[in-house]
C-alpha cells in the first residue's frame, strides 16, 4: 500500500516542519510590547508590564484583550469559532493570537524593535 515515494515525501515534509519550528523558536525572546492590529491596521500598542484590559470595538465586533502578569490573552470575542479565546496566554515574541473572523491580531514585540526602526 505504501510506496517508496510516499515515505520520501513524508520525510521531506517532516524535516521541513522541524526546520521551520526550529527557525521560528530560535528568534524567540520574552517580549516587552503588545501590538494590536485590526484588519492589517495598527490599533494600539501597550506595554506588557502594565496590567490592563482593552476592549476593541470595531466593525460591529467586540473583543476583549487582557494583559496580566506579563502575559496577553484574548478574554472575550464575539466570533463564532472562539479559537482566539481558547488559545490562552502568550508571552514570547514569536507568539501571536489571531481572531480571523474579526481580523484582530495580537502580537508581542521585543523592546529594541522600535529602536532599530528609528536608528535605521
Amino acid at each position, binding site marked *: *500500500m*505504501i*510506496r517508496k*515515494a*510516499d515515505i520520501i*515525501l*513524508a520525510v521531506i*515534509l*517532516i524535516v*521541513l*516542519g*522541524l526546520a*521551520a*519550528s526550529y527557525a*521560528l523558536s530560535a528568534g524567540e525572546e520574552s517580549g516587552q510590547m503588545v501590538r494590536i*492590529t485590526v*484588519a*492589517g491596521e495598527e490599533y494600539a500598542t501597550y506595554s506588557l508590564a502594565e496590567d490592563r484590559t482593552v476592549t476593541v470595538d470595531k466593525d460591529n465586533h467586540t473583543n476583549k484583550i487582557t494583559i496580566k502578569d506579563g502575559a496577553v490573552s484574548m478574554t472575550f470575542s464575539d466570533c*463564532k*469559532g472562539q*479559537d*482566539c479565546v*481558547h*488559545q*490562552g496566554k502568550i508571552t514570547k515574541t*514569536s*507568539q*501571536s493570537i*489571531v481572531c*480571523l*473572523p474579526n*481580523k*484582530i*491580531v495580537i*502580537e508581542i514585540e521585543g523592546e529594541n524593535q522600535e529602536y532599530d526602526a528609528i536608528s535605521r
Partner: protein
Amino acid sequence: MTGKSGQTTAYKIALASMMAALALIFSYIEALIPFSIGIPGIKLGIANLVILVSLYILGFGYTLAINVIRILVAGLLFNGLFGALYSLAGGLLSLAVMYLLKKTGLFSTVGISMAGGVAHNLGQLLTAAFLVSTIKLFFYFPVLLFSGIISGILIGIITHLILKKLPASLYAATGRAKNSKKPD
C-alpha cells in the same frame, strides 16, 4: 454497461451528485463535532475522503465540481461564507496538489492524501495571512504542517480501503479500469 457516450455521462453526473451530497454530510458532521484544540485550522477533514475517492473513480473535472459545490453549499448552510473562503483556498490547492501527485503515478493514496492535507492547511494559512495582512501567522505553519501530515495519512489509509471495496462495475461504468488505476 460501458456505453461510450450519453449513458456514461448521465451515470457520472448522478454519481457525482451523490458524492457531492455525501461530502456535504461529512462537512456537516465535521462542523457539528469540532475537535478544536485551541489552534485554528486543525481538522480531520473527513470530507476529503469523498474528494479523494472521487478523484480515483470520476477524475479531476467531476471532483473539482463536487468540491466547489460542497464548499459553497456548506458555507451557505453552516460554515458561513467567511469560512467558505478559507475552505475554497484550502480545497482548491489541496485538490490541485493531489491531482498532480496522482498523475505522476509514483504515490499511493496515503502519500497523495498526506500532501493534500498539508496543501489544504497551507492554502488556508496563506488566505488567512492575506486577510489579516500579517506574515506572523506563519508561526502556525509547523503545527499545521504536522496536523496536515497526520490527518492526511489517516484519510489516505481509509481511502485505500474504500477503493479496494468498491465494485469493479463502478470503475467500468465511469470508464476507469480498476486494476490499472488501483493504488497499492
